[in-house]
């Protein structure tokens, strides 16, 4: 048994403050009346109200949500089927595919971004189409979302007892009935959790989007980056706070889903 010590408790508390300081600071400054700089002038909700009339921000929000929804839809489809296939069947070169699948997870963002930039440039030359914009961004996002969904769904399937399926088969259910009534319901929490995480990944992505975006497909992270670079930040704090809150709520939902559906051992 581990003895708790006041020293580790204190360090853990300090680390918690350290991890949350940036998030809290952005939210606090989003209520600051000061136009520029980090000095505190007074409390206001003006920046949030102004967002309604901020056309570039609204356009970027629509792009971001559209991108996240489209890419998550396709990646959930591809990723879940992949997870099912990988956890139920043996096939040649499975280990190799397994490693290939992890490339988008570990690759530095910037390398993936320029690789896709180059790839789309070549495709444009050879085939026409593939102009940088929402389509290329969606293709890129699906690529880095698939492995995350596959990992989450596979982990979920590994936690489930294979005897449940065997029992269904013993009781006379065919492959389709077993899948529909046993396997798929067991997979659902994994699919939902994976989908939510993939949605957050897309919402938060800056580097890959930055390199695969075109005119008119600016997303919120790109908008934030260009504002920060130019030093125009007053209304950025409000947008950033909203994104932080949406991401945090998503993660809490996933954690809650996992806790609720945890396989009892």
């Amino acid at each position: 048994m581990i003895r708790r010590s006041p020293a580790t408790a204190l360090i853990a508390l300090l680390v918690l403050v350290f991890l949350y300081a940036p998030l809290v600071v952005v939210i606090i400054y989003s209520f600051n009346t000061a136009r520029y700089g980090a000095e505190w002038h007074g409390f206001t909700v003006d920046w949030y109200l102004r967002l309604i009339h901020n056309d570039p921000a609204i356009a970027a929000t629509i792009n971001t949500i559209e991108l996240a929804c489209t890419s998550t839809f396709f990646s959930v489809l591809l990723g879940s089927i992949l997870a099912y296939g990988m956890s139920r069947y043996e096939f040649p070169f499975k280990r190799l595919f397994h490693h290939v699948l992890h490339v988008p997870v570990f690759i530095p963002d910037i390398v993936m971004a320029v690789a896709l930039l180059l790839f789309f440039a070549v495709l444009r030359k050879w085939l026409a189409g593939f102009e940088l914009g929402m389509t290329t961004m969606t293709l890129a996002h699906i690529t880095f979302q698939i492995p995350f969904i596959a990992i989450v769904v596979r982990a979920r399937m590994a936690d489930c007892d294979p005897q449940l399926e065997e029992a269904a088969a013993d009781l006379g259910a065919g492959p389709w009935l077993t899948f529909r009534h046993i396997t798929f319901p067991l997979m659902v929490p994994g699919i939902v959790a994976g989908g939510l995480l993939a949605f957050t990944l897309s919402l938060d992505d800056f580097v890959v989007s930055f390199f695969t975006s075109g005119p008119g497909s600016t997303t919120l992270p790109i908008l934030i980056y260009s504002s920060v670079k130019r030093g125009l930040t007053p209304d950025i704090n409000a947008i950033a706070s909203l994104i932080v809150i949406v991401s945090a709520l998503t993660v809490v939902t996933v954690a809650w889903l996992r806790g609720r559906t945890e396989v009892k051992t």
Partner: protein
Amino acid sequence: MAEPTGQTAFKRRRRIRRTVHFGEPLPPGAHTFRAAWLCGPALVWVTMFMLVPLLFVVALSFAQRGDAGEIVWRFTWENYERLFGHGSLGFDPVQPLILARSLGVGFATAGLCLLIGLPVAFFIASLPRRWKSVALTLVVIPFWTNLLIRTYAWQLLLSPEGWLADILTTAGMIPAGTALYPGWPAVMVAMVCDYLPFMILPLYASVEKLDWLLAEAAADLGASPGRMFWHAVVPQIRPGMIAGGVLVFLPATGQFVIPDLLGGAKLALLGNAVQQQFGSSRDWPFGSAIAVVALLVMVAGLWLHTRVTNGRREVSLP
């Protein structure tokens, strides 16, 4: 032949269970066929949009840049020579320095995260079951929020009007009105803040499985707390330490946003160099060569990671 027992029997039974599909033995060919249409689409997708583009990058790294920034497909080692210091006027240290700096930042971040993460992992492991999942969720939330926003937040925290600068000014450590960025301290603080969860999660997984009887035995035999930790605890949590180290090292080495916003032009890392070559410098072949080096670093890290975890769980997802 005698029925195998123990580990072998267990493994064999598992293999049999896998090849029996809903009570019906399937011939191996049928397996491959079903797997192909289930896994095929996603694997083709990742190959098409990840592996093929990377092959293009590798190919381009051996090409030349034309005078107007266009690509000239003539084979050359020139890009790699430049990367390792071969300039037109003798040795040019700019590019090797970027590589060395990136690796240095990666190791330093991993080391700092390990130092800070260890006590946290022990603390979380000591909590009651209910509070463990709460603590882990708290660690994970910042990890899933936008890295760009967190980095920008450090600009706010470290600005001349910020609280930290105020405290340091009052303490007489810096003159009033000094910004704490751009510079090394700012980059390292943001790096550690952003990647600490990557370290805490695998460390916690190791600490959780720790056999404390070994530590107690060491203490009973007269080992000092330091020696007990080093000889009885560290060997047990080494997989978690290495896994966490790799998970921190890899993204830190290739970081682009943090040095860009907090480091200034002088502290460019591999990621910034790639961005510059593909952006303003318009030297895509040279940028590709830098990207290939970043890829090699990734492959080396991944190899170490799979060796340590024995391929059990390649990614410790929060």
